[in-house]
């Protein structure tokens, strides 16, 4: 079986590509060349790895969740603790890699989109670290929901640009970031936050996130003396999932990607692209897309801003069709239950995004024998969501 599906340049099977205005094509070619050169450059790799260790705090632990395992009474559950990285989510791995790359390319300015604010914070952090100007595009709706992260980005020296158009969420922030990049392409690098968009972003972001999988593989071999039976990760654009999965694609390991089921597929208020979408071309690549009959992009809903997006990384589309990865979804309610369960049983408050992956583990583990091993990617921590969850539960908060 063709597991990785690399054939035509920038494609995974029939998915991917480079569907962008001509103005951006030379910039993407330049980026591709720079990235290809630097990934083989020993000095760059050393610099990046040192930063991952001393600044991000890697390797992140692979933690055996004993109480959760006992509670569910089935497979042994390990958590890959990306929530323990600097800035609190896996996003920093990629943002730092791209900030470093942009600096080497001689760019003066970084821009990025953000939904929940995690990628915005990570990019602002990367910009501060390497000394580049930084502007973050964020929908007005998301700015309201994540006011604290807005302030955090400003504190880090970034300028947050409000996007008051369209649905005022992540997809509109990406449109605006692409428009900014088109206008300022000579001096600016666009730090796309996930394994999405035009080639080379899906490949490059996966590469910067692949450290998650490499570490987890080493760690599980040490802890269990064998490879895991299952990997579970949430999938918005899909970068934390690709980061984990990429190290196991050639092994006999089952993988599950968990999308946002929102209020349920039948309500139309969700972000489950595989369960409720069809193939389309959006924001630079061909993949699965939530769209209407005429090819206009539909609004999405999820309790977690980071999964609230109409399309999904093209490599995931390929892995879906080939059957290598199984995709399912968790509804808002299930994610919220998992959010509380993990907090109470393990003392770990997960990001609402990661809580979707935990929710799938909660469903799967009890059905498996006790000698099976599951790794759940705990992609981020839930501090950013505490106020949001309190609001949902009707607890008034000033945060």
């Amino acid at each position, binding site marked *: 079986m063709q597991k990785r599906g690399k054939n035509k340049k920038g494609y995974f099977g029939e998915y991917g*590509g*480079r*569907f*962008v*205005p*001509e*103005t951006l*094509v*030379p*910039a993407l070619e330049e980026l591709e060349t720079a990235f290809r050169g630097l990934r083989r450059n020993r000095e760059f790799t050393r610099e990046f790895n040192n930063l991952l260790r001393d600044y991000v705090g890697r390797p992140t632990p692979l933690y055996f969740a004993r109480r959760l395992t006992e509670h569910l009474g089935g497979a042994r559950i390990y958590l890959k603790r990306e929530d323990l990285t600097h800035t609190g989510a896996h996003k920093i791995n990629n943002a730092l890699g791209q900030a470093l790359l942009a600096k080497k390319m001689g760019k003066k300015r970084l821009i990025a989109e953000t939904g929940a604010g995690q990628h915005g914070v990570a990019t602002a952090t990367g910009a501060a670290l390497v000394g580049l100007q930084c502007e973050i595009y964020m929908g007005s709706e998301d700015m309201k929901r994540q006011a604290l992260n807005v302030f955090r980005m400003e504190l880090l020296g970034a300028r947050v640009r409000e996007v008051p*158009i*369209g649905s005022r969420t992540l*997809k*509109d922030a990406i*449109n605006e970031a*692409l*428009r900014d990049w*088109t*206008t*300022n*392409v*000579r001096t600016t690098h666009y730090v796309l936050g996930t394994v999405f968009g035009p080639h080379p972003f899906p490949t490059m972001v996966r590469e910067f996130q692949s450290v998650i999988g490499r570490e987890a593989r080493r760690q599980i071999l040490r802890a269990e003396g064998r490879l895991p039976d299952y990997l579970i990760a949430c999938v918005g654009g899909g970068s934390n999932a690709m980061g984990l999965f990429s190290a196991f694609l050639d092994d006999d390991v089952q993988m599950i990607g968990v999308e946002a089921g929102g209020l349920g597929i039948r309500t139309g208020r969700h972000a489950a692209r595989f369960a409720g979408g069809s*193939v*389309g*071309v*959006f*924001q*630079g690549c*061909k993949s699965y*897309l939530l*769209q209407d*009959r*005429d*090819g*206009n*992009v539909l609004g999405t809903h999820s309790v977690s801003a980071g999964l609230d997006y109409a399309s999904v990384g093209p490599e995931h589309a390929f892995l879906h069709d080939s059957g290598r990865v199984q995709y399912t979804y968790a509804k808002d309610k299930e994610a919220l239950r998992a959010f509380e369960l993990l907090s109470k049983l393990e003392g770990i408050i997960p990001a609402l995004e990661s809580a979707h992956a935990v929710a799938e583990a909660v469903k799967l583990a009890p059905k498996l024998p006790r000698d099976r091993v599951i790794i759940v990617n705990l992609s981020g921590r839930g501090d950013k969501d505490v106020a949001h969850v309190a609001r949902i539960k009707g607890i008034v908060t000033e945060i």
Partner: protein
Amino acid sequence: MNRIDRTFGKLKTEKRKAFIPYIMAGDPSLDDTLTLVKLLEDEGADLVELGVPFSDPLADGPVIQEAASRALGRGVTLRKVISTVRMIRRSSNIPIILMTYYNPVFRYGLRRFIEDASSSGVDGLIVPDLPPDEAAELLKESRRQDISTIFLLAPTSTDKRIRLVSRASTGFIYYVSITGITGSRLRIDRHLVRMVRRIKNFSNKPVCVGFGVKKPEEAAAVANCSDGVIVGSSIVKMIKEKRGSLRKYIRDIRKAIDGLV
């Protein structure tokens, strides 16, 4: 040879430059689109570029974004725009170019779209998020139906890109005057003149310039160094805000392009 080629052939013989206004189909309504195309033709447009509304127009500035969402709000779809072209064809022979993002076309089914577009009287296509590298199938189907495929070049384009885009383009080549989105501010400088000349080194196809052309004197300057002028955002804005002034504005642009001001 389709209507676009014939028009440029005629313009060349007459030593005139093309005036290509852009309007958003269905803004404010598809009936208005019929009237507006008639007005544009009466006042001297050589070709008309008809925008197809899309939910996420990432190459467009605020003016055209808003026009698109107004049209979408009224239920305008690619299918309906094609029917509108069929109605325009009952009384007009002006070359019509559809400017549409790729996803509506992909969703429609590329082959069927090209067939329907051709049979309704569409002459050319501009798909701003489809560079020639991704357009093999579109090219094949368009050639079969004699529909022109107009690709874009930008100030950032390298020789390699210019060669590729000129080869894939038929009808004319669309030079985007600035790095930016539609409706940005135009800069008429040596760079623009030099770039158009550079493109002409690679191809003898007409080169028309758009993005940011607003004032008649800008249109005149652009016409001076190219084969045609595309005016979009300022027309779309005028239709929304002071439609009564549109006829005079179109007439003024025409005169400016012809060097009569």
